[in-house]
């Protein structure tokens, strides 16, 4: 809860500073105008405008969904560097499957196919990671550094570097990019569902508490009879499945999968989890924090655009935000609970 409070403060802080300049320049309204297709209204140009917020949330949602899984891995004192590659692999194979369907296939067929294939591929890739980490007793950093390259290589082999598109209309216009009242809420809603689901699993189920126990003290976990290996494999598998979900959201939203999708996402996802309060030493981290961390990263992005700062500064600010977030978290940390 402490972490979330810090994040809320951070959000208000970042949001607040960016709100003011956005309201002033009239150029922004002009930019927004053709997109909404509505005649210009006086009060549109605030940062807290529904359009902008949903856009920020949608952009954050891919990272956020993956960060929920990553948080569980980090709370387990593990790491997964391969998720950017899993993301591309799941999206690609999902795209292959969707391309096979008729363009006119209905949502009730297209969506389950897309979700099942993407999440299945993601789960399988995560399972392979977990099984190797547990079975071969190699540090997860090394295993996933290896699979990061392997999975990405598989993507290049399968796609030959081409973009795969031509999905049924229904999955894009009819679901992931569905427009409701001028906004496209589905990716954001999926993020919220994942976040709440992640919170529930991490705090209210046995497996979730075992994750914290193992991450906090693996030796003691063994002495308490916790099946450490099984929990680890399961967590990597579930995290992979969530990456698959994010991949499906991405392919479904954009109607295509590219072979370089998700490149560098592993670091953004880890950053989101860490900003959200996960400790790389294990034992700490929350799903809510992870999603909020992803939103903070996206807010920084968004804020820089609104402030019309040169994109080149983006990374510098982002890097500083990670360090500051962790420092603030460390300073504020008291004996508290993981939620």
């Amino acid at each position: 809860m402490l972490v979330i409070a810090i994040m809320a403060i951070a959000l208000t802080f970042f949001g607040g500073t960016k709100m003011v300049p956005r309201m002033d320049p009239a150029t922004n309204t002009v930019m927004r105008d053709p997109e909404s297709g509505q005649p210009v209204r006086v009060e549109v140009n605030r940062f807290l405008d529904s359009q902008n917020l949903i856009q920020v949330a949608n952009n954050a949602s891919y990272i956020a969904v993956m960060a929920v899984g990553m948080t569980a891995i980090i709370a387990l004192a593990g790491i997964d560097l391969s998720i950017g590659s899993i993301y591309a692999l799941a999206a690609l194979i999902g795209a292959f499957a969707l391309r096979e369907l008729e363009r006119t296939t209905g949502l009730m067929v297209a969506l389950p196919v897309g979700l099942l294939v993407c999440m299945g591929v993601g789960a399988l890739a995560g399972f392979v990671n977990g099984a190797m980490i547990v079975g071969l007793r190699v540090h997860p950093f090394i295993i996933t550094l290896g699979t990061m390259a392997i999975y990405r290589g598989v993507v290049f082999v399968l796609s030959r570097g081409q973009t795969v598109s031509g999905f049924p209309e229904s999955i894009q216009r009819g679901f992931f990019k569905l427009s409701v009242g001028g906004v496209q809420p589905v990716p954001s809603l999926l993020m919220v569902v994942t976040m709440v689901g992640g919170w529930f699993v991490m705090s209210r189920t046995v497996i979730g508490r075992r994750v914290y126990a193992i991450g906090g003290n693996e030796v003691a976990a063994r002495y308490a009879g916790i099946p450490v290996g099984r929990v680890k494999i399961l967590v990597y598998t579930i995290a992979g499945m969530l990456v698959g979900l994010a991949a499906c959201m991405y392919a479904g939203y954009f109607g295509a999968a590219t072979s370089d999708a998700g490149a560098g996402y592993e670091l953004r996802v880890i950053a989101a989890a860490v900003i959200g309060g996960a400790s790389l030493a294990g034992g700490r981290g929350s799903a809510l924090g992870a999603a909020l961390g992803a939103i903070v990263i996206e807010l920084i992005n968004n804020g820089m655009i609104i402030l019309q700062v040169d994109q080149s500064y983006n990374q510098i600010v982002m890097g500083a935000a990670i360090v500051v977030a962790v420092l603030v978290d460390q300073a504020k940390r008291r004996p508290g609970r993981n939620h």
Partner: protein
Amino acid sequence: MDAIANKSLVVVENVSKRFGVTQALDDVSASFLAGEVHALMGENGAGKSTLGKVIAGLHRQDRGTVFVDGHELRPGSIDDAYARGVRIVHQELAQCPNLTVAENLCLHDMPTNRFGLIDRRSMNERASELVHQLEPGIDVTRPLGALSPGWRQICQIAAALEDRGENGGCGPRVIVFDEPTSSLSIAEVNRLLEIVRSLAERGLTVLYVSHRMGEIFACCDRVTVLRDGRFVATSRVADIDEPTLVEQMIGRRVAATTAKGLSRQSGTSHLAPSEPSDGAKRASGLRVESMASPGKLASVSFEVAPGEVVGIGGLVGAGRSELLDAVFGLDGASSGIVEIEGKAIPSHSPSAAIRAGVGYVPEDRKQQGLFFQLGIDENIVAPVMSMLASTGGIRRRSDESRLVDERIRSFQVKAASPASLPGSLSGGNQQKLLLARWMGKRTRVLLLDEPTRGIDVGTKSEIYKIVRDAADKGVAVLLVSSEMPELLHLSDRILVMCDGRISGELRGEQMTQANILRLATMESAAATAADC
């Protein structure tokens, strides 16, 4: 011992040292001669290692003085001790297994050429010179980690023998060996003992910290015994025999009888388990058959009846904790049968053991026991959370908190709230917390490893009561303790372990400190003696 032997080189006066609640050394005075091998003996925790470390400057004494050749050493200063010629050889001493023998020996001062690069040739020469006086077979260009434990030990001794003249100090004059043979094979031990003797013949004072009888009689001139941090006696080895030495280590005969009286007193209230003959008919609480694990345990078999407390005695490294680990299914390499109330545990895993009704309070509550990032409540329910949960693994929080409240109350864990972290508790309360974890109806067998280590006296007696109460409810208790009075007080029967096997069983009148110690040191003493 010859001419120089009359001179006391090292004198220790009124040294005291305290670690937390333990008084490791209490007003100890002793003196050690030049050219002698002087053994420091005592039980686990008697203070013998601490004394060696105080002399070498590794520990800073609270009171008292150490003199070397008439000079008062600065307390707790390794450098000062080193400059006066005091060297220590012990297991935990920093060594880098990834570097070569020569690099290890020259780590403090690597010879360089005029370009500032390491001069390997002169480094290797210097190292060979040191090592080969002890063991010509060692190749100093090999990584230290590739050497056998015995040779590694010899390299340490070689390092200790180095004369670093540049500090204005003198060469080695006093060498402290701290349990030097604990990880060596018998042949290696004998080679080491030869080296130890040769050092004394060169006029050095050797302080030999050990609890192995055989080694003491094989190579030492005099022996000083410590007990509970106090000086007991210094004798010439030639003038003393083993029983007398054992008696000195464990205290007066009177002490032994008192402890026995205590144990019998507590034993009378548990008549059922003291009739082991009908154990065959009734299902025993815990039955272990041919439990073996490579390098740790050699075919251990025993039974514990419901309501019986069986103690396991033995020295550090005898395989006591390893036995408990194996029974609990934590040792992947172990083989053997574990039966709980007549039913074999189907697989070697802690979760199977817990389902069968085994509870385990491990030795090190910080490393092995507690989750410091989780609340007291979750620390208690950790092993049973999945059994309390509804289908799908969703926690039943009301059931959990009911169980937690009841345990905290009945075991009087003094905590601000069930959600507070274990780090906020005292050591005694942390230990009670760990015990409370296993005190459910489900637990039929309780494995306790040093359940009162580092705990104040008051909490100790509470824990004794908890253990006895559990036994009264029919739980079979297996207790490992290095504290003799505790072992004698709590146990209905004692198994003594030595070198990974059970070297003897003691009942009733036989349960004395002397008998335990004799069985615990028997094997190693016999082996060493046989090999000499």
